[in-house]
């Protein structure tokens, strides 16, 4: 009964591979083309005027289509919350420890996730004013990675009330 042909089949290897041609969509494409030029685009909800960053096709709160012109945002903002990461993760090629941050760009009503650089870990705190540190212009592509990280600004902290809704 040790004949290979009569042994029970215990494992079936069945690789599945499907290819997709993915389209980011009109709204995300507009955002990505703009960031290739160093511009940060958000969009304003037609109902309550809140600015969503990045651009998207509809306001996720009201479901209303956003057809208006995008809003160009500055690359400065407020660090609303953060986490000092000391545990490696397979898909994040950053040197440990690093500071994962949520930044509320000036004029935006939604936060963006990024990392903080050029900063002593002991001094990171909520309300810090920050600015984007960009890659050299010749390396810009249609990617949020055009921003290397955010760096602290030599400015007084933002008032807690100005960002408490976004933590």
């Amino acid at each position: 009964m040790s004949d290979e042909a009569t042994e029970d089949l215990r494992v079936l290897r069945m690789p599945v591979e499907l290819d997709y041609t993915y389209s980011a969509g009109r709204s995300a494409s507009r955002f990505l083309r703009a960031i290739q030029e160093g511009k940060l685009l958000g969009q304003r909800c037609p109902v309550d005027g809140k600015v969503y960053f990045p651009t998207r096709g509809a306001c996720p709160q009201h479901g209303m289509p956003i057809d208006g012109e995008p809003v160009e945002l500055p690359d400065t903002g407020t660090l609303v919350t953060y986490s000092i990461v000391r545990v490696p993760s397979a898909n994040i090629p950053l040197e440990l420890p690093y500071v994962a941050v949520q930044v509320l760009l000036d004029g935006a009503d939604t936060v963006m996730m990024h990392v903080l650089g050029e900063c002593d870990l002991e001094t990171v705190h909520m309300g810090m004013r920050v600015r984007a540190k960009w890659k050299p212009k010749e390396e810009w592509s249609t990617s949020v990675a055009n921003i290397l990280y955010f760096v602290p600004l030599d400015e007084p902290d933002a008032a807690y009330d100005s960002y408490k809704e976004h933590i």
Partner: protein
Amino acid sequence: MRDVAVVGFSQSVSLRRERNRNEVEILIPVLQELREATGYTNEDLEFVCSGSSDYLAGQAFAFVAGLDAVGAWPPVCESHVEMDGAWALYEAWVKIQMGYADVALVYGFGKPSMGDLPITMALQLDPYTVMPLWPDAISVAALQARLCLDGGVMTDRQMAEAAVRDRAHAKSNPHAQVAGDFDVEGILSEPYLVSPLRKHDCSPISDGASAVLLASSNRAGDFSKRPAWIRGIEHICEPQDLGVRDLTRSRSTEIAAEKAGVGAGRIDVAELSAPFSHQEILVERGLGLGADTTVNPSGGALAGNPLMAVGLARIGEAAARITNGEAERAVAHATSGPCLQQNLVCVLEG
């Protein structure tokens, strides 16, 4: 039982390939059109249910992005089925029956052009003995068509006639993808795509979305002057294994039709979601339709097949014909799985 009606319907144009818009961007104008047609606002909704497929989108939890088009405020109970939106409608109908909601939004959306659809569909087959062979969806349907032809269940002329009828009807449907005047002889002289199926026996690959607003009798009048009342709705599933069921008839359609009460009266209009001409004939027979029924006035799935939205669109099309007074009693059909594995039948009345 509570009286529940379709009080609004909207759909996108079926396109072979939406080049620039992503799934949610296809859906956004469809929901906006439904808002404008019915006057509903998010404050009216008590339940939201959608149908879509991560396999078509190529990413996990792809349906979550669709909620951008709905709006998250005020928060309501929300659900999703990894199926055609017709099954999302069934879930919403149950919710209303149970008294949990009076008004529900249902939508379905899909962008199959992102992948290789006939191959992607292989993943719904038996995962141990069939799927590893990677049979494409057209070949699987062709096996069924071959059984039907060799068994004398139908002729290829009848199949061609179904395609000619649907594409001619689709000329008056601005959302259709394949429409026009074709003739049976011309179709029969064309080469096979996958024997015995010719190109005209197959539905197109379509990107698109559809949406329906459901309401109980408490609220239906707020949204529609002539609601299309759901008098029966049922769905039945057959075994996944193609070898253990009779592929030359659709037993699940027959059972669902009986339970939904299709035969209780004259059917003016039938909207069928069968993606192949021979399957359309099987469904027509399974429903027990007679010569006095207009089949697929919109063109059905052979004129446009936006997966995950096409079945819901059939319910919407049937309801629209009741709402505009063309029909008094209609039946809509949706299907899922290979070779008509699972079928949903919905009877609507004015």
